[in-house]
């Protein structure tokens, strides 16, 4: 039994370690400027955690196997263990954790303590049960006011705009796909109509809740063109699993053409 248990623990450790090393098969491709530092921090954490994990598991496996039926007479020297070894191990673990905290904090400030770059394109992101809508301010660079009593999915006025009365609303463009130009700073303003949703694009390494009653700004710059999934990261009701939209990262000319096409459809 001791041998089997030790083998099982070792095997689990090797498999888990193998899966960790193979991590690039797991983390999706990185397509934003903030993804680099975050992935770097992931790698550091994988190393430290992998070490701690393997040490703990392999030690259990080894001890169980080696001590399995030791006669009593042989172990009196071991009754009180080694405080030096114990202290050193805890100290090493603590130092590793403090170091990790420091680099993590650095990453955090690099990623989240900066405002959007000047000239960022502002886009409003709206979540509702169970769809996403995106609003571009149009040529006047201003969002028209939102009238909650006019919001209606059946008439197609998803965001409650009054294009007759509000001049700022006239050129607003509402889409179901989030189109953005590549290598251009983007500022998103997250809003929700009903319950809490969560804007999550794994490839951007970007996640933020949409809280009704709040306008939450986030920003990013996409570095690679392509189509990616925006998923809802927080349980919002029965259609939660199906609440997704497309993030289309395009070249500048492609984006301009796309936006014109969208404007014509309003």
């Amino acid at each position, binding site marked *: *039994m001791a041998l089997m248990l030790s083998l*099982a623990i070792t095997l689990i450790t090797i498999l*888990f370690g193998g899966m960790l090393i193979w991590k690039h098969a797991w*983390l*999706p491709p990185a397509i934003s400027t903030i993804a680099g*530092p*975050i992935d770097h*921090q*992931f790698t550091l954490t994988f190393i430290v*955690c992998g070490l701690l*994990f393997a040490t*703990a*598991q392999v030690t*259990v496996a080894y001890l*169980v196997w080696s*001590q*399995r039926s030791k*006669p*009593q007479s042989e*172990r*009196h020297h*071991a*009754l*009180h*263990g*080694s405080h030096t*070894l114990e202290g050193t191990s*805890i100290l090493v673990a603590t130092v590793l954790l403090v170091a*990790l*905290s420091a680099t*993590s904090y650095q*990453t*955090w400030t690099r*990623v*989240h303590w900066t405002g959007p770059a000047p000239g960022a394109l502002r886009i409003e992101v709206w979540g*509702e*049960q169970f769809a996403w809508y995106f609003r571009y301010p149009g040529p006047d660079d201003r969002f028209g006011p939102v009238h*909650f009593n006019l919001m209606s*999915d059946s008439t197609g006025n998803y965001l*409650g705009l009054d294009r007759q009365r509000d001049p700022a609303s006239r050129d607003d463009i509402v889409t179901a796909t989030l189109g953005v130009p590549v290598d251009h700073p983007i500022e998103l303003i997250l809003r929700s109509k*009903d*319950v*809490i949703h*969560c804007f999550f694009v*794994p490839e951007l390494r970007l996640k*933020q809740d949409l809280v*009704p*009653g*709040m306008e939450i*700004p986030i920003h990013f710059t996409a570095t690679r063109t392509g189509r990616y*999934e925006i*998923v809802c*990261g927080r*349980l*919002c*009701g029965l*259609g*939660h699993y*199906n609440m*997704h939209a497309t993030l289309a990262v395009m070249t500048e000319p492609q984006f301009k053409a796309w936006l014109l096409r969208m404007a014509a459809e309003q």
Partner: protein
Amino acid sequence: MAPQVPGHRFLQPQFLRDTARKYVFSSNHKVIGVQYYLLGLFAVGGGVMESLLMRVHLAWPRLPMPWLSTLSPIGAPGGIMTPEIYLALLTMHGTLMVFFVATTVPQAAFGSYFLPLQIGSREMAFPRLNMVAFWLTVLSLALLLSTVFTAGGPPTSGWTASPPMSALGSIAGPGEGMGQTLWLVSIGIFSIASLLVATNFIATTLKSRTRGMSLMRLPLTVWAWFITAILMAFAFTVLLIATALLLMDHIGGYSFFLPANLVVSGVLQRYSGGSPLLWDHLFWFFRHPEVYIAIVPGIGLTSHLLSVFCRKPVFGYHAVLYATAAIGLFGLVVQDHPMLTKGTNSFPALGLSVVAMAVVIPLVVVIFSWLATLWGGAIRLTAAMLFSLSFVTVFSTASVSCIFLAQTPLGLYLRGTYFMVAHLHLMMGLAAIFAIFAGTYFWFPKVTGRLLNETLARIHFGFTFVGCYCIFLPMYFFGLSGLPDCYATIKGVPTLAALQPWNVFITGAALATAAVQPLFLFNLGRSLLKGARSPQNPWEGTTLEWTIPSPPPAANFPGDPPIIYRYPYEYGAGSGTRDYIMQHELKAPSAPSKAAFC
């Protein structure tokens, strides 16, 4: 003389009254401990069934389960599980497991039974309060289960019940009407019951100890129950208030958690002035300590059992004790961390990240103490020991994943994904359940006077240990891939659908692991009826429960409760044939000298 009514002896009113007082509405801590255990067993059965249904649906979303449509004709046309049913199962699974298993069994069941025994008391400090707490828990469970029979079924907002979803009523989705109301009342009552348990445990530990049982002579199990009770007192007070406020929003039209201008399903709602963030702030005062409420009794039990089955004192009794207290203390403080996903000021990120990381250090201290206890020990691989060892490995894995979640930039990515699912299941689920198994295999002989079958127990252990790792390790990698939790199917999102083969693998492992569990129940039942008689102290333990007959007499201790002379882990210290000294023994018992027999 009681009035005699014609009929069988078992139907006599006097007999029924006596039986009810002895086994049903009893204020005896041992009866209540067993009652809590059986309640937990029932809840875990239900919770596992629900998770299996979810797993089958995740692996094979189009598989018809015809009997499902007889159970719920509206929700399952043709027996295909709908997202509503999936979320209802998710809520019920989470609620049963978190509240009625992980909170109830390690603390209320084991603690009610063994806390008085281990400290040399005849009863809990407040026996009637103990009984009231148990029956409130039963009421709470009954209310929770009754949601199944409401028109919309159980709530679909998960066990964290976040508003606005949980506050808006049936407009927010099926189960959000009557189902959510009942859920809130149920959890409110559970909170009251837990506060009574906490009060009782704290008072008993402080006031009912026998002579000589100073605080530093308490077994680590007792310390763990005490620390957990303090955590419960804080956490459940906040939860009680939060559920009361949410209930007022839900049925009274208040707006604690609801802001103005909500448009739900195209209808403008008449609320104003509240914020859903308030719930998150309140709920996290419960949600994070709850992880430690589930796990701290297991930490104590593991330290205790490793010492017994290594025949060595706990390595660093004081270190483990203070580390456990630190885990509890940090557990209360960390609460705000996940707020960062909600765009509130980024500055607290530093402080919270530091605290979240600081929790890992006492975890490391505890783990190293276990390793040091194992080192050089004469390990006895009983079933209880095997489950304690599996607790060590699962707990270590979960502690390592804490390091990911504690770092804000990584935690932000991983929170709300399957990484969190894996982490929580290892920490509160598996570790708590492995501790329950270990406790059962360890204390069953004391409670029933009979030994469990060790061969069956080992088979049960082997499959459970490997199976559980197969279920939960892949989920860490699901999380890294960015798969959000609570998805009824992952086939809706093309980039995530590639993970589907792993879903089938996990479901297979879950079915196999679940299939072994009847072995455990069979072992309990069979041993109860015809297991070998257990000696008074089958594991050669040192604590007070082993000084009395098995099963323990009604008053626990035949004479006066014993006087305590020593610390609880004097293993390897005896002389002659015995390698341990019990807590109530003044001197090491000397071996019968050979000369006496000549």
